[in-house]
């Protein structure tokens, strides 16, 4: 997160996503891992690159990377890490130990989606539709405004 160039940041992000996907696979959640690769790397990262490209035209390398009071942000993050770490350490004795790797065919996931989690599924669908429409509206609305802004 400390790289100057945003594109470099996105690349770093992608690598991170990959790593996470590997972890998921290691943990036996294959579907999730692959989904991660598909969605995050395939969509989100690309999206971000697109956005970077589209918002780049007037900015130059003069923009600073860090805000004026970035120390406060870092300090807060460190504090959060401290707290979480302490919590984990504190509860380390009570955490359950490893059990056998569960057998998880994808069919079971599909079953669960349509039986048990059908409501969240529908809501997510709705949400995705709304997001799609909204993003489209927002992105498309501007030709007149752009012309006005330029004049």
């Amino acid at each position: 997160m400390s790289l100057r160039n945003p594109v470099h940041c996105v690349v770093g992000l992608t690598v991170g996503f990959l790593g996470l996907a590997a972890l998921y696979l290691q943990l036996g959640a294959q579907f999730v891992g692959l989904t991660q690769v598909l969605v995050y790397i395939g969509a989100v990262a690309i999206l971000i690159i697109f956005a970077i490209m589209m918002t780049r035209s007037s900015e130059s390398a003069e923009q600073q990377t860090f805000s004026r009071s970035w120390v406060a942000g870092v300090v807060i993050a460190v504090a959060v890490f401290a707290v979480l770490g302490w919590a984990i350490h504190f509860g380390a004795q009570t955490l359950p130990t490893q059990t056998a790797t569960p057998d998880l065919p994808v069919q079971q996931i599909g079953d669960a989606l349509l039986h048990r989690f059908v409501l969240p599924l529908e809501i997510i669908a709705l949400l995705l539709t709304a997001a799609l429409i909204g993003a489209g509206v927002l992105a498309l609305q501007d030709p007149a405004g752009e012309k006005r802004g330029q004049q």
Partner: protein
Amino acid sequence: MTPLSSYLLLSAFLFCIGLAGALSRRSTILVLIGIEIMLNAANLNFIAFWRYGPNPTALTGVMFTIFSIAVAAAEAAVGLSIILAVYRRTRTTDLENTEASER
């Protein structure tokens, strides 16, 4: 350290990195990136707990993670379109640009 706690620690670490970035960087896109990282960290947490949890066959963790990924994608799309819209107005993605914030 049990494997679970190491996963948790990693997830916490990722979360904090994402938080630091979201709070410290000037560009809005980079803030968004930080937020993505945070979401991912949370996903990792879920999966870890699912794996080491009491009832892995219930698939709760996995389900939740899938939904989280979906939501994160939607949110990234909407956020970026907002950034685009703002960019068209103010011609910059700088968060501390006082001209933009005053307008």
